[in-house]
C-alpha cells in the first residue's frame, strides 16, 4: 500500500511536469542558430530547465532504489544514462564558448547537447516512465 501511494505521488509529480513544461516555453531547448544564438541568458535558462528535468529523473531514480518504482526502472535508468553521460563534457565546452562569445562553436555544441538530451527523453518516453513526455 505504501509503495502504491509513493508511486502515485511520484507519478503525480512527474505528470505535474507536463504543466510545468507549458510554463517553461521560454526555456525550451530549441535548436540554436545564428538567428537564435546561445546568449548567457539562454544558457542559464537552459541549465535551469535541465536542472528541473534532472530533479525529476533523480526522483525516479531515488524511488527505484527504494523499490517504489516500476520493475524495469534500473534498466530504464541505465538506458537513459547512455545519453545523459554525454552531457557533462558538452556542458563544460558550451559554458566555455558562451563565456568567450564564440557563437559558432557555442551553437554547434548546444545542438549536440540538445540531441543528447532529446535521445535521453526519447528513451524515457519509450520506456513509459511516468511524466517522461514532459521532460
Amino acid at each position: 500500500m505504501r509503495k502504491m501511494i509513493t508511486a502515485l505521488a511520484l507519478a503525480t509529480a512527474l505528470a505535474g511536469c507536463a504543466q510545468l513544461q507549458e510554463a517553461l516555453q521560454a526555456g525550451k531547448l530549441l535548436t540554436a542558430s545564428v538567428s537564435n544564438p546561445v546568449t548567457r541568458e539562454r544558457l542559464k535558462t537552459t541549465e535551469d530547465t535541465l536542472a528541473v528535468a534532472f530533479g525529476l529523473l533523480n526522483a525516479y531514480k531515488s524511488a527505484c532504489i527504494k523499490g517504489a518504482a516500476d520493475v524495469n526502472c534500473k534498466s530504464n535508468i541505465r538506458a537513459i544514462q547512455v545519453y545523459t553521460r554525454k552531457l557533462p563534457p558538452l556542458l563544460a565546452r558550451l559554458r566555455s564558448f558562451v563565456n568567450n562569445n564564440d557563437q559558432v562553436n557555442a551553437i554547434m555544441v548546444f545542438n549536440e547537447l540538445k540531441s543528447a538530451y532529446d535521445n535521453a527523453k526519447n528513451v524515457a518516453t519509450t520506456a513509459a516512465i511516468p511524466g517522461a513526455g514532459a521532460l
Partner: protein
Amino acid sequence: MDAVAVFALIEKGLTIVTALIAAGQSVEPAMQALMNLVTGAKQGTVTPEQLAQTEELLDQQVTDFNSDIQ
C-alpha cells in the same frame, strides 16, 4: 518571461514540490532550479554569480543521476 508565465511556473512548481514531499523525495534541487528560473525572469539579466549557482546545481543533479545504480 512575462509575469503570467512566472506565476504559472510558481504554481506548477509548488504542485511538484508538494507531490515530491508526499513521495518522500528531496525537494531542494527542484526548489532551487525553480528559484533560479524565477530570479532570472524577474531580473532579466544574468550575473556570473547567478550562472555559477545554476551550473553548480545542474552539475550536482547530473552527477547524481549518472552515478551507477546497483
